[in-house]
């Protein structure tokens, strides 16, 4: 009877061995007919870029907006001829703002793409950081922490949270809503996002003799009434926020309801148009948002063009992710063209082209970008904006791109 089982075992093993293994998957790198070096994600007719986004988690509205912006750019870029005789194609996956899902999806999408036009979410970027370095894949995180700048393959399109906060505080002081010696509060989500924003307010506070009352929260806290009550007792003159949109709503509602009525300043991810239909809608007048990408409703020519194309193609409520997503595409387009000029469309070629990009232009969708200095934010400029229910995208800018003197002096954590 033993022989029967042995026979079965051997039969299974032989069957498995008979199937073809995954051998022979070696890389297809080489040069094309015009002498341009190619590698992963590039064929004779296509360049494929990856999109790892959130369509089902806590930042799904932003993820959707950025992805749609990416898609609009790809369409325009291809209509204008593409790059090196190739069209750009986007490969999209949804990680639901979960690091473990992203970690499994990454090896599936990585072999198919030249780089990533979107990598949304701090936990996801942190989990994939080593992968990007190992695979030399350039990625544009939809996450603006300057802590990410120690990775040469990270392409942050826009101003980092710390610099946004410095610019924002400078703007509000210029507007007379803050003065030297005041006490301010910073409510932030513990983690890459929140702590980076806090870094900026601490720097500005040191410059202007301000006292910063730090309030750490978690990303799932939903009611900040008790936090604001405490701040009222502490006599703060301004509340800085590096939070989720829902938390922003809770904070501004409490600010008004409790009679504190101080100015509120938020980093770019703190606002979402959905707030304009929330219970906090009546309290948003005190909120100022600083971001390096334009509001959807900006009256700049390029922004109007993107907005028109968006409305023609999509039905969802637009948000600031759309012009940002388009702008990232434009930066990628500039890098791709430079790589093509260098006759190197491999990942190494993209990384080299990125370093040579000293003035990626997005027609003011985002501030002008300089990627040639490792560890340094590519721009320190922001738009200041306020919520406006009458504007598409729910926000309008009140000050065009500017850079505060304090932001110029600021040294980012990985700056050399």
């Amino acid at each position: 009877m033993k022989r029967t089982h042995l026979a079965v075992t051997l039969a299974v093993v032989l069957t498995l061995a008979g199937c073809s293994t995954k051998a022979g998957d070696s890389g297809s790198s080489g040069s094309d007919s015009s002498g341009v070096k190619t590698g992963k994600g590039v064929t004779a007719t296509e360049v494929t870029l990856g999109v790892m986004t959130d369509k089902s988690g806590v930042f799904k509205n932003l993820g959707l907006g950025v992805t749609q912006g990416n898609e609009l750019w790809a369409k325009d870029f291809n209509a204008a001829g593409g790059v090196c005789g190739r069209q750009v194609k986007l490969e999209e996956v949804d990680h639901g703002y979960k690091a473990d899902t992203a970690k499994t999806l990454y090896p599936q999408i990585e072999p198919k793409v030249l780089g990533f036009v979107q990598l949304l979410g701090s936990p996801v970027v942190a989990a994939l950081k080593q992968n990007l370095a190992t695979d030399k894949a350039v990625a544009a995180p939809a996450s603006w922490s300057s802590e990410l700048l120690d990775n040469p393959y990270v392409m942050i399109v826009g101003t980092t949270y710390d610099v946004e906060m410095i610019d924002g505080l400078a703007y509000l002081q210029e507007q007379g809503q803050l003065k030297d010696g005041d006490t301010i509060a910073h409510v932030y989500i513990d983690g890459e996002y929140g702590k980076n924003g806090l870094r900026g307010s601490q720097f500005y506070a040191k410059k202007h003799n301000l006292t910063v009352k730090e309030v750490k929260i978690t990303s799932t806290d939903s009611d900040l009434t008790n936090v604001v009550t405490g701040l009222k007792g502490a006599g703060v003159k301004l509340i800085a926020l590096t939070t989720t949109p829902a938390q922003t709503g809770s904070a501004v509602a409490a600010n008004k309801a409790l009679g504190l009525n101080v100015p509120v300043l938020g980093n770019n991810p703190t606002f979402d148009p959905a707030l304009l239909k929330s219970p906090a809608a009546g309290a948003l007048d005190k909120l100022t948002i600083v971001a390096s990408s334009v509001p959807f409703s900006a009256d700049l020519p390029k922004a109007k063009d993107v907005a028109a194309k968006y409305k023609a193609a999509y039905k969802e409520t637009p948000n600031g992710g759309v012009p940002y997503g388009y702008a990232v595409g434009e930066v990628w387009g500039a890098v791709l063209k430079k790589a093509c000029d260098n006759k190197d469309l491999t990942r190494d070629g993209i990384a080299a082209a990125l370093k040579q990009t000293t003035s990626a232009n997005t027609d003011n969708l985002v501030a002008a970008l300089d990627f040639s200095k490792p560890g340094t934010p590519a721009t320190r400029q922001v738009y200041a904006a306020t919520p406006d229910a009458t504007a598409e995208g729910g926000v309008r800018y009140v000050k065009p791109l500017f850079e505060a003197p304090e932001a110029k002096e600021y040294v980012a954590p990985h700056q050399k």
Partner: protein
Amino acid sequence: MAKLVRGAAWLVLLVVLLALPLYLDAAWLKAGQYMMIGGVGAIGLTLVVGQAGQLSLAHAFFLLAGGTAYTVLSGPTGDDRVVGFGLDPGLSLLGAVVVSALLGLAFAPVAGRLRGIYLGVASLALVFLGLYFGQSAEELTGGTSTGRAPAPFSLFGFPFTNDGPQITLLGVPIQQAERTWYLFLLLTVLAFVIARGAVRGRVGRSWRAVRDNEAAAAVMGVSVLRAKAGAFAVSSAYGGLAGAMTVLWFDILKPDESEFGTYGINVSIAYLAMVIIGGLGSVPGALVGALIVNGLPQVLALYSADLGWFSGTGDGALTPILVSSFVYGAAIILVVLFEPGGLAAIGRRITQKRLRRQPGQPAEEP
């Protein structure tokens, strides 16, 4: 005869698992490794909950403890931001298990005095302790801003990365994904064999005696407190091993920003789900439960990307994560209502039916 059949089945399964890296892409190996992490952790939990009858919601804490211990012990000395001891990764892995077991023993006075839901609530406190510890002990954990990278694993100098000797098997290069698969498979097999041995031996009998009737167990000479403490320590050790595997899988140790993350309440509940679906106290059942709870989201995510499923966007769209949550939520309800013994009980019944044709063979109890 029954043993031969079972032995042959396990052997075939092992051979298949050993051959899979030659056929599956890195993404599927990654998903499989995640299932193995769940399997190791679930085996530990099923021992303490199913065999010893102690409800524990603290498993996520021990994952964090194990992951941190591995990363600190194996981390480089001389880093100005984080503490490291520069030990060999193999030794560090063992150290992580020991540290977690000791932490479990430290909780023993509580585990020895409480039962059921009261112990569950008390053990839940450890998850919040872990959240606080993860965020505040930045020199050990790297903090929530950037975390810290664990030392790449190596065994007797052999690296589990793309470096080192280039090995090819049937034309397939054995690189990081394949090497990690074999490492995790080895750890899972070890975890399985040890747990199986404990369950069938004197230790397992004492656990079950305590679970079923503490007074009777005491009369028979079992030290109730000692048995409970031992069960909790063993479970913690398994949790610590799963935690070390987690940081190796992620390439980063990054404490959670909130109570729902890699080491949060959601993870403790997921492990409990694995154990319930697989059958309380069943070691093979724990593996099946891990396959469902940890594997389903990963597999659905991979299939959806390949086949273009779940392509809807915006509110109301069905996504892999949503679907898999419904599936395993439904699985728990079905198990609790119709098959309290879990999939293991179904498996046992099927096996007994087949074996009933062999007269004279008594059914084997787990």
